[in-house]
């Protein structure tokens, strides 16, 4: 198979990353020091839970320096790190793609969330598991034919409907697209109004300027 680049083609692969966290109850793991309040898991996975290792070689999570071995390299799925702690900090996630994809890597960061916020914070009792999950896509531009074949041999799919566990579904996507379209229409409407106004004002300005020149001439 040739490694010709397919021009003007881009393939997108969605994935999901983030963390779950739950307060430590009575069953504490041995390694937790007494001031750790939560146990959390930071992860990178497919939106439907599918395996991503056909294009991901490894994922490197950089935790806060105070953790021993704060650089965690995960070579096999599931790409996740489970730890205990008390603080929320930025975790740097570097996804290394495999040779087929050209051995590139991308970096993103995720803020570890332990405590409920927003409307969740007001719930009593507080929710048992706190989640902070982001949906994103890896976009492969002008992939090689080889990469193309690899990617196309793995189906992917979002769940068609949203559930509590996976909020990222086709349904949600459609809803979002619809929302955006609606907003776009609104903005366009506003824009039309504005443009009208501009036109009017410019007319007025022109008239006024003519008048002023006239009065200047008269004096």
């Amino acid at each position: 198979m040739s490694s010709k680049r397919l021009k003007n083609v881009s393939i997108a692969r969605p994935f999901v990353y983030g963390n779950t966290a739950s307060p430590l109850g009575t069953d504490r793991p041995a390694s937790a020091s007494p001031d750790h309040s939560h146990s959390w898991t930071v992860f990178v996975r497919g939106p439907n839970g599918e395996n991503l290792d056909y294009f991901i070689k490894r994922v490197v999570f950089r935790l806060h320096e105070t953790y021993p071995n704060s650089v965690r390299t995960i070579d096999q799925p599931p790409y996740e790190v489970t730890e205990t702690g008390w603080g929320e900090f930025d975790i740097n996630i570097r996804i290394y793609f495999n040779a087929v994809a050209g051995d590139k890597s991308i970096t993103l960061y995720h803020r570890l969330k332990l405590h409920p916020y927003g409307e969740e914070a007001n719930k009593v009792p507080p929710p048992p598991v706190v989640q902070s999950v982001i949906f994103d896509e890896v976009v492969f531009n002008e992939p090689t034919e080889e990469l193309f074949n690899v990617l196309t041999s793995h189906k992917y799919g979002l769940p068609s409907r949203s559930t509590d566990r996976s909020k990222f579904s086709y349904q949600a996507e459609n809803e979002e697209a619809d929302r955006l379209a609606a907003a776009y229409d609104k903005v366009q409407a506003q824009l039309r109004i504005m443009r009208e106004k501009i036109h009017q004002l410019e007319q007025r300005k022109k008239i006024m300027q003519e008048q002023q020149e006239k009065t200047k001439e008269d004096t």
Partner: protein
Amino acid sequence: MDAKSIRDVLNLPGKSESPAAKRPKIEGKKHESIQRELYALLGDNSAPTMLQQPQKQFKSRPKIQRKPGPWVWAPFTNQARDDGLVLHHWVKGSAKEDEEYSYVKYNTKIEIPEISQDAESVIEQEGWSIDETKKLLALCSEYDLRWVVIFDRWTDEDTENPRKIEDLQERYYYVRQKLLEMKTTGSAWTADQLSLYNQLDYPKEKEIARKEYLEGLMHRTPAEVTEEEALLVEARKLEAAMKRMNEEREELLRLLDSPEAAGSIAKYSTSQGVTTLAANLMQQGQNKKKKVESTAAPAAERPQASVAFIRKKISAREEAAYGISWKEKLHPGIQLRSAKFPTFKASVQQKVNSILGELGLPIRPVIPTDRVTMKFEQLVNSIVMLLEAKKAVDRLNTEIATSK
């Protein structure tokens, strides 16, 4: 006995006559100048009655809320003494018996170890007898390891070789180290003991050299001092210059190194080569322009090669399933969808975000697929256009207002 008979006896003049005579006289006093009635109006002509001055408000005595507490000349003992000397001091309120004297806690002493019998062999050192060592340790304990004073109070046994202060210090630290060793032989050393042992290392030669150096420093003349300072200033300037030069060098190297040449650059190293390079680059630039124009036209057409390849594999529907999309102007590489959200400079971005908020949308789409991203891009761009239009409206309004 009546008054009259007494008067007769005492030959006193009659009393009744004169006042009686006087009284009508006074009352019937004739006033030549003014009428009697008028005089009566004037009044008695007695002294004017004193005006009641308002009682001057002096500051009233402060009201004492409580009785002053008694101060007692109380005896006390000092627990740091062992002879039971009783001193006295003024204490407010009652004297509490046998309270610990508050200054006892300041009676701290540095722990100086004693030399026991079996320790004597361990701490042997040339030139130091046990008695001398004991004397030294006693002085150390008494003066709390203030070496200057210990040295001042030291009496040499052997006046031929007076000991220097460094000798005394050396001997003391040697003894301490050896005693510590003796205490911890057999069992393992704890971290504290180890650190203490290391701290007890007294580098005599270094201390002597340091002190000599310090003396030399002290004896510098003022001229030397100014010279030194001038040299320091110069040295600092040189350092700063060197740092700057290094930074510039780094910059240059970075610039030079960054684009790595694909082929050999040998053919471009001559001046002729450089001109050919320039010409090539110009051509490439123009080619690019042409390419863009040409690909814009057959936008509807997909590049043949890729099309063919892909059509082989999958159908259109599956295309969507695999997230394939066709774009113009692609650079090879891998990116995150979220990296491709349109961004603007901070002030604009803020306004855009607030408008998104008004529309009830998050700043970043929740599910950024291709379709959603495109729509988002469209939306944000239109918002920006709206903002610009608003600005234009405001500008025109102000212009009209000012020109009125």
